[in-house]
Structure formats: C-alpha cells, structure tokens
C-alpha cells in the first residue's frame, strides 16, 4: 500500500509531511525548502508556474499571479470578504456561474478549488519525488473555522489534484496532534494559538492516553499575517502620498512591490527593532523617477497591529469560556503559524496566561506533521492516537420570521447526528423548503446559507399533520449532510446540500480532465 501524506494547505505557504518508520518528517521541495509558497502564475507563454517559481516572477507578472486564494475558497462572490480581497489583490476576480469567485488569468478563469488543486498537486509532486513512489491519498488541513462550503471546496480540490482525501482536519488540532505525538502518557490541557497568513484559530484540547479531545474552538477565517502586511502597506502608501503627492494604489506593480517589502520588513522586525524599506523607482512623478526609502521601527508596526492582536486575544477568551476553563487551567500554550513569531503576539499571550508559550514546535511545519500523524493513526492499527474533534460552527435551519433554530451547537463532538421532525403550515401542502444555516446568529440572514432544499411528495393532509423527519449529520471532516424521511409513508429522500459556491460533480470532472494535461507522471 502506498503511503499517505499530510498536507498543510496554507494561505501563504504549504507544507507536506509523511510518517516514515514511525517518525514524522517534513518533506523538502527540490529547492530544499520545507515550505512552498501557495502561489500560482500563468506566464506570458502560457506556462503554469507554482510555488517559488511563481513567487519569483510575481512582481513582473502581478496580474497573472494568484496568492492567498485560500481566503476566497468556498465563499460567495457577493460576500464582504471577497469584495475586500478584490480591492487589494492585483489579479481580477470575477463571478462564476454558481455565484462563486473565480480568478481571471490571461483568458482563462480558474475556480478557487482549481487553484488549490494546483498547489496540492505540487505538494503531491514534491512528496512523490522525495519518496520515489506514487502518492494517491492525503489528509489535508483547513482552518478550524472553515464552514461546510470551504471544507467541501477543499475536498474537491484534493479530488481535482488526483488525491483521495482521507480526512479533512483542523489546523490547530493537527498542531496539537504533533505536540501530543510522543507524549502519549501526558495528561494535559493545551491551547493552540494559530496565527497564519490568512486565518486565526484557537483550540483547547484535553490529552490523555493517546486521546486528544477538542473541548472548544474559536477563530476568524479572515484574520492573519496578510492583514499585518496590509496595514503596513497602507502606512507606507500614506507616507509616500504625504511626502511625494503620489498615490501608489493605482499601480498594480508598485502595490505588489510594496506588499513584498512590507512583509519582509514585518518579518525583519520580529528580530530587529528597526528596518529599512527601500524601493527605488517605485513611481514616476512629473519630473522623473521617485524612490521610496523609509525606516520602519518595531514600535510603528506594533502600534499599527495592536488592534488585530487584541482581537486575537478576545477570541482566546471566548474559546476559554466555551471550554469552561480559566487561563491558569491551561497547562501548555502552543504557538503555531508564522505570524505568531511576532514579539508582540508572544508578549500578549505570555501576559494573558501568566506563562511563556511552549517552545518545542516549529510553527511552520507542525500542522503538516499533525496531518501526517492523523493519516497514520487512521491506517495503522498500532498507532494508538485518537482524535475527538468538534464542529466549530452551530448548524441550524431557517424558521418562520427569518430566525434560525439551532439543531447542533458549536463545539459538539463529531461525528454527530440530530434528527428533527417538521410539519406543514398549510392544508394539503405537499412540499416544504428547508434552509440549512451555519453560524451563531439567531437571525437567519447573518449565518452562512449552506444550501436549501425542497422536500416534496408529502402526502396531502391538514396542516400540522404530516411528519417529516430531517436528520442532520456532520461527519468527522466537518462536512454536513442531510436526509429526510416522511414518517407516515416511510419514504426517504436524500439531499445533497450543494452549498452555494461549490462545484458540481460534472464541473469537478471537467476540471480534472483539463488539468490532467499538466499532470507529471511518476513511475511506480
């Protein structure tokens, strides 16, 4: 049987790992790097570039280079998040036929799942080259706060990439698995603080006897290192505008250079207290070329970022209260994600918990390692690790008056099934419409609509008489399915909750066929 890899499909960087002879190892790519930029570009000659190659040419080919598309996956084109992203990124985002956002590169549009698939395929290739064998199966991680549509799309991406996705697991949970590996006898309560490039997650877990039980999870799928960069970019633009009178926002290439420089400065400031941003020929004024050259101090960055870091700590507090714990009941705090290297983050966390965070894990690699461990735990009987994860979002249905009735509360252990009996509201009504919602609000509108379906063929009767039992299942991937049964006739209806914005099976197949052209075969 071929081996199963674990892939951390990150907003900015992706990473792949495998368990080799009982030891998890991170697989370096051909360049020797253990992480690969989650970037994809279509070069002028139509060539497809992924990872470091895409990143290297990003500045000169900004409008055909996609980065951070994970922020868009599984979202609707109409959503605030997509609108916000489209204002900032140098590539064009258009609306797809399912109301999903698509990236326009050259003449071709790409779905988010397709872009993710291209990156997954690259990670698969990296693993195949390293291991010298064909890889067909993977465990892929997603932010804990991903909703059903986002998970579904990620799974679709795996399929497109020619990978069978054994399991979708949550990034902070994966990190905890990696931490718990080799500490099977420890009985501890740990908190994972995961601040990556595009998402923020907190999870609290209880470990013992090789079992990891997630007590609660909280987070924000639109908050991460990219936001720190954006704040710094804005700061630089405003400064430049004040001193030179030129607005750099209109220039895609200048924006891309600024973004790169800001990220570099941000990372530098985790070690140094000040750094220089130097961008010669960033613009042309009336009298010739203009250069941007400024000193940025850690203090400035911290002032800009204070709000965001505070926001993360509020989420930490929420998670603790969901778990019914106080800060001093946490035995270990594990920091994950590149952005958690920022000294301000570490200070805030230490302050909050009254102790230094755990130092033993590599924040860039630990998630992929956890995914590989989970793959092993599923397939290897002697692997005595078991994960008891929860659903991060409540599941409900829309009810009369625009309200949402919760059927499964957030932080419920998975897999879970809840059944509920529905009836008609009019005489001789033969169909009912059910809207499946995910989110915490009591108001239907404020939650994510996973999908709606119509239950038809109900026998004619007085209102309130027919009884239709609808079962809601959330599997261990966090993916929702719904089935319905007319209790009087016993007739079953299975319903696919085709989330708005996800792809149909036909579309997935079409994309697979198209992308097969680009597949590089590895000999077994």
């Amino acid at each position, binding site marked *: 049987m071929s081996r199963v890899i674990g892939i951390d499909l990150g907003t900015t960087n992706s990473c792949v790992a495998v368990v080799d002879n009982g030891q998890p190892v991170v697989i370096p790519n051909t360049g020797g790097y253990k992480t690969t930029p989650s970037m994809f570009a279509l070069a002028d000659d139509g060539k497809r570039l992924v990872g470091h190659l895409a990143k290297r040419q990003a500045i000169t080919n900004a409008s055909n280079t996609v980065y951070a598309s994970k922020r868009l996956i599984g979202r609707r084109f109409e959503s605030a998040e997509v609108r916000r992203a489209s204002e900032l990124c140098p590539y064009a985002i258009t609306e797809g036929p399912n109301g999903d956002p698509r990236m326009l590169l050259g003449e071709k549009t790409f779905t988010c799942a397709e872009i993710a698939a291209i990156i997954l395929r690259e990670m698969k290739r990296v693993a195949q080259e390293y291991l010298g064998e064909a890889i067909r199966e993977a465990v892929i991680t997603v932010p804990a706060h991903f909703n059903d549509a986002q998970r579904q799309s990620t799974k679709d991406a795996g399929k497109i990439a020619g990978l069978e996705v*054994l399991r979708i697991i949550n990034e902070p949970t994966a990190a905890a698995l990696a931490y718990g590996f080799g500490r099977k006898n420890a009985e501890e309560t740990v908190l994972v603080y995961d601040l990556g490039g595009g998402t923020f997650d907190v999870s609290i877990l*209880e470990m*013992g*006897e*090789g*079992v990891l*039980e997630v*007590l*609660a999870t909280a987070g924000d799928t639109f908050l991460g290192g990219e936001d720190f960069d954006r704040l710094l970019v804005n700061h630089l633009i405003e400064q430049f505008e004040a001193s030179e009178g030129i607005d750099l926002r209109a220039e895609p290439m200048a924006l891309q250079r600024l973004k790169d420089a800001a990220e570099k400065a941000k990372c530098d400031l985790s070690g140094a207290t000040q750094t220089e941003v130097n961008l010669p020929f960033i613009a042309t004024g009336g009298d010739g070329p203009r250069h941007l050259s400024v000193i940025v101090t850690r203090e400035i960055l911290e002032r800009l970022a204070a709000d965001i870091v505070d926001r993360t700590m509020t989420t930490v507090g929420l998670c603790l*209260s*969901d*778990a*019914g*714990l*106080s800060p*001093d*009941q946490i035995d270990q705090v594990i920091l994950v994600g590149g952005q958690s290297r920022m000294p301000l983050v570490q200070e805030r966390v230490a302050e909050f918990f009254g102790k230094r965070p755990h130092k033993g894990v590599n924040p860039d690699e630990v998630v992929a390692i956890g995914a590989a461990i989970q793959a092993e*735990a*599923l*397939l290897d009987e002697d692997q*005595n690790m*078991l*994960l*008891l994860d929860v659903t991060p979002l409540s599941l409900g249905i829309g009810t009369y008056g625009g309200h949402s009735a*919760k059927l499964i*509360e957030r*932080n*419920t*252990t998975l*897999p*879970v*099934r809840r*059944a*509920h*009996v529905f009836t008609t509201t009019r005489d001789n009504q033969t169909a009912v419409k059910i809207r499946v919602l995910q989110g915490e609000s009591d108001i239907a509108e404020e939650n994510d609509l996973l999908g709606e379906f119509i239950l038809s063929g109900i026998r004619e009767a007085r209102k309130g008489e027919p*009884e239709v*039992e609808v*079962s809601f299942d959330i599997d*261990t991937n966090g993916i929702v399915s719904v089935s319905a*049964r007319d*209790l*009087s006739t*016993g007739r*079953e209806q299975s319903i696919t909750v085709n989330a708005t914005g996800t792809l149909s099976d036909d579309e997935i197949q079409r994309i697979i066929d198209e992308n097969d052209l680009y597949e590089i075969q590895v000999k077994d």
Partner: protein
Amino acid sequence: MVLARQRDAAAARVPRIPEGADPTTLSLTPAEGYLLSRIDGRTSWRDLRQIGGVRPEDVDRCLERWLAEGVVELAAGTDSGQAAPRPTAGAEPPRSPAAGTERAESERIENRPPAAPPTAPLAPAPAAAQPASPALDPGLDLPLPLQEKLIDLSARLEAPYHEILGVPADADRKALKRAYFGLSREFHPDRYFRKQLGPFQTPLERVFRKIVEAYELLSDPTARAEIERSLAAASPQGEPVAAVPDSAAAGPEAAPARPRAPRRPHVFTLAERMRKERKQRAKRLFEAGMAAFAAERWLEAAGGVRLAIAFDPWNAVYKEQFADVQRKAHEESARKLMREAENALDLRDYPAALRAFEEALPYRPGDVALLRRAAQLAVQTGGDLHQAKEWALEAVELEPNDAEGHRLLGQVYQAAGLTANARRELELALQLDPGNVEVRAELRELSGGSSPLRWLGGKR
C-alpha cells in the same frame, strides 16, 4: 431509521438447517428442541414467533444464537448489509431498575466462547431479549469479543448513563473522562477506518454517539443533577442515588484545582428537552394508534404506532405491539390491493393491475400464487420482464418441485429472448410432469422457431 423496514425484511426471512449439519449433537432444552423441530426451511422467522409454546422474544434470542453459531442459516440474501436478522417486535427490556439482571445477562454473553454449544436454557430468562443485533461474524475486521461487546451495548443503549460509561453513579469528572477516553479508543469509528464491519457499522456508530452523549451529559453539573433526580425517582426503593458534584469530590487527587464552569450547557438542555418532547409525542401517537386498533382501523393503527416508534425508538412496549398491528395492517393492505387488482383486470387496465400486484407482494411474502399471477401478467402484457423474472424465480425457489413454476419461468425467459434458459426451464417442467402436452408443444416450438438472433441472446 430505515431500521423498521429492514427488520420487516428480516422477519420475512426463512431460517433453515444447513445441509450436512446435525443438530442432534447439540444439547438443548426441551423448549429449544421443540423450536428446532419447527425449522423446516419454509416457516418464516415471523411465523416461528407465532407458533406458541415458546415466547416470541425467546424465539428471537434462540434463533440469533443459532445463527451466530451456524446451527441455522437464513434463506436468501442473509448477508444484506445492515438487515439485522431480527423481526419487528424487538422485545427490549423495559427500562427496569433490574440493572442487576441486565448485567448478569451481559456477562453471560461476554463469557461465552463464540463456538460453544447453545446450552443456555430458554425459559427462565425473565428480562426478555435484546433489540436488533447482528450475528457474530469472524470474517469481519472486528474482533469477536468486540462484536459481542457491541451487541451487548446496543442492547443497553437506554441504560442509565453511568452504566453506559461503566462507572459508578457517583464517579467524579476524572473517572468519567478516563472511562470516556477508554471507550472512545474502543468504539470511535476512526478506529475502524476502512475496515469491514458489515452489519456492525450502524451499531458501532450508534454506540459511540451514545457514549458521547453519556459523557457530555454527566460532565455537565446541571444535566447530571437532573439525571440523578430522575434515576432516583425511577428506582423502586425510592432511595436517592448518591449525587456527588465533582467539585465536592473528596480525596487529594480527585478534586480539580477549582470547580469548572458548566461545559457547553446549552447543548444539553436542548437535547433533554427535545427528548422529553419526543417521548410525550410518541405516547400520544401510540394511544391514538391503539384506539384505532381497537376499532379495527388497522392502517391507521399501524401508522400511529410506527410514528410512536419513530419518536421513541427504544420503547419496548411500542415495538411489541407493532408486530400485531402491522400484521393486521399488512393483511388489510394486501386485501385492498388485491381488490384493486381484480377491478383493474375487469377493466382491462393491465398496468394498473400489475402495479397493484406488485404493491401487494411485500405484504404477502412467500405467496406463490400471487408471484405467479404477477409474472404471468407481466409476460402477457409486455410489462417489465426483469421484474417478471424475479417473481417467477422466487416462485420456483419457494416451490422447486412444481412443474408450473418452471414452465412460467421458461415463458418469461422466452419472452425475454433467453432461449437457452427457457429451454432449460421447460425441460425441467417436463421432467417433473412428463405428461404435460402443453409444455411439450412449447418446447418443440422453441426448438423450431428460434431465429439466430434469439439464439445469441440465449447464449449470453
């Protein structure tokens, strides 16, 4: 929740003694011997429960055991996935305080080696049988002891929560967690990822969900207090069950640093409330159903009881009643449909007649005459020949030595262009009834008038 239907199907199955098996080597009680003597390969499980002399639930238990031990087998499709070889009225112990008996019962099962002869006596067991449970199967990727455990746990899903977790009623939070982790490692579906679990898949999932429910409710002080109250109320002596909130647990290592805030309380209140509502609703439906039953409105009665079971699946009383109610309802439905079919035949509306026959069939399992009529009608009116073949085949299987059955099957094959099959069946019919000139004529015609095209079809 397809369960009820699956159980129906199982109830219609016919147990038989496998060829070559010699049941006389077993040591049986007289009651068991009597039951064994009734197994003739024709009498369905459902009918065996009705034979009298042995209580239906004892019939179930015995058959299940014999099935597990290979003493009997089920005719036709016994391996169909989840279909528990178990009839409708899943007699389940009423939620009695007789926890002691229940435990004794389960120990008996656990200690019994899988292949041991069935020595357990039939009659004396007071606490009735288990609900739907699959037969032990050494071919599955699930160790036999675990299969037994699953059967046992599935039967005790309504036991008090602490018993589900296997902890004392006053267990502290730490003990709860330890038990929960231990059970999770045994029963979490991930432990059997991609494993062949056969009919144990569903019980496994159900058991795991129950374990989670037990753990979550008992970890929540409010829910736990309520559970303990209701347990105390249900206990016959009326003595309160010791309720020790975990913060008050004595002992140096037992008490956590500080009392924990109730964990996820909203979940529990919702679940509890929903459960209560469902139970009440079930009761109302059941009562209405029984009233209809008394008034001989069978269909309405069956509908009511079926709904009651849907709302309160573990109520043994409902399930017990359901068998009777449903039998009546089935008879009634079949009668109605047969009337419909006759009417349609009078009006020469053959499709409608065929539909009515088809619908009546599940209500009259093993009705050879009905099967034949349906098959014949399908052939004569150009109906679905696949379906006709199934019916004719079933009729032949039920009465393998009847020439007419083979002849009909032959006619179906012939209509479908499967000439070789048709010839085989007609020849069989002729063997069984050598004097039948009609069959002889049909055979002759078949040999003479076969076009090459049909021949090809027959070869396939």
